[in-house]
């Protein structure tokens, strides 16, 4: 209710009580006095409020001294710089992590490539008992996976005491020299029973000096030797995969060659079970 409403209400109610004119006038005067006091109180409160607002307005309009403003700006700038440094550090971390992921991805790709080459080579080597197929698979590994352009396969010939060529690629078979175990080209490979890589060059070759000798072993004996004389012109260097392929050929080549040779000479059997059982019984005495 507003001041005016309250004033009207006070005056309106006086006529209903049946008091004398003097009492009525006194009552009016008293209420008028109270009303004025109330108005004055409210006026004072408004004046104080006005002063407060004026003071705040004054504060807001008063210019900040340059030194204080500069200090504040410096502090804000320092804070922003800190934030910037932090973001830069985070960005560097992310970039470093991305590089690490990229390197790891490349590593996994290389590893996959290596495993695929080894798996396919091993799988193919053991996929046939036909001697000419086994020899062809050795050729394919050397040509397609290693990238050799001239190579040969020499097999041990006990009567002559030499390894004699039975297969060649990129050069006529009759041009491949037979090699003895003491021949400098073979000596290290026969002694260590490990592939020996002499050098790498994409140009020039010497049929007496193979660049790679791989001993194809069977139970530790070197049954044959794969010799590489030159590489495809686009091959730039030997890689880790090449070394692993040579090792794979060394470990499996002799076995698959001998298996194919034996399979070619053995008569067909009626029952593989009976044949295996008979071999186990006569084999090494472990038939109990």
């Amino acid at each position: 209710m507003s001041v005016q409403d309250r004033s009207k209400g006070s005056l309106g109610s006086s006529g209903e009580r049946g008091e004398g004119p003097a009492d009525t006038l006194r009552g009016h005067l008293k209420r008028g006095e109270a009303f004025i006091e109330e108005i004055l109180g409210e006026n004072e409160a408004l004046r104080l409020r006005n002063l407060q607002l004026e003071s705040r307005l004054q504060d807001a309009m008063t210019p900040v001294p340059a030194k204080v403003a500069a200090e504040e700006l410096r502090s804000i700038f320092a804070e922003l710089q800190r934030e910037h440094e932090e973001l830069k550090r985070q960005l560097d971390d992310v970039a470093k992590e991305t590089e690490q992921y990229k390197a790891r991805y490349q590593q996994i790709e290389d590893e996959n490539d290596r495993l695929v080459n080894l798996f396919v080579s091993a799988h193919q080597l053991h996929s046939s008992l036909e001697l000419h197929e086994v020899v062809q698979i050795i050729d394919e590994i050397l040509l397609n996976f290693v990238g050799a352009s001239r190579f040969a396969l020499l097999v041990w010939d006990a009567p002559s005491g030499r390894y004699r060529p039975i297969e060649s690629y990129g050069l006529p078979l009759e041009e491949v020299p037979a090699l003895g175990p003491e021949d400098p080209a073979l000596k290290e490979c026969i002694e260590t029973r490990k592939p020996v890589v002499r050098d790498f060059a994409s140009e020039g070759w010497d049929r007496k000096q193979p660049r790679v000798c791989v001993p194809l072993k069977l139970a530790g004996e070197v049954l044959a030797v794969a010799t590489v004389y030159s590489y495809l012109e686009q091959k730039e260097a030997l890689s880790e995969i090449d070394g692993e392929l040579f090792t794979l050929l060394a470990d499996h080549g002799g076995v698959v060659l001998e298996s194919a040779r034996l399979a070619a000479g053995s008569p067909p059997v009626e029952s593989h079970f009976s044949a295996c059982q008979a071999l186990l019984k006569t084999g090494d005495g472990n038939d109990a």
Partner: protein
Amino acid sequence: MRELSALIVEDSPTMRQLLVFALSRVRGLSVAEADDGLDALKKLSQMSFDIIITDINMPIMDGLKLVKRVRSDERYKDIPVVIITTEGGEEDRKRALALGANAYITKPIRAPQVIQTVRQLLGV
């Protein structure tokens, strides 16, 4: 997404197996195999392919003859062809590209290179 298909034309089982392994890593790509160019043309007439990967030196019909036949046939002329070969000379490359091959990869073969080339040509 439609499944894509590749035709590998290669007379060597070792190389075919390596390429099948490599391409099995391209998501959504199925792989068919042919022994030589003639076998490839037969397979092309039986189903549609999105890319052909072929060796050059093959019996019956070699890779270059296959590229020529593919490029002169309205049905197949837009199929991308990748040549894989031992021939690393610039002249061999130019000859193959002039016949219409889209890419030329030399041996020794590395799976990541094959995968990257196929992905680029297929846009996957």
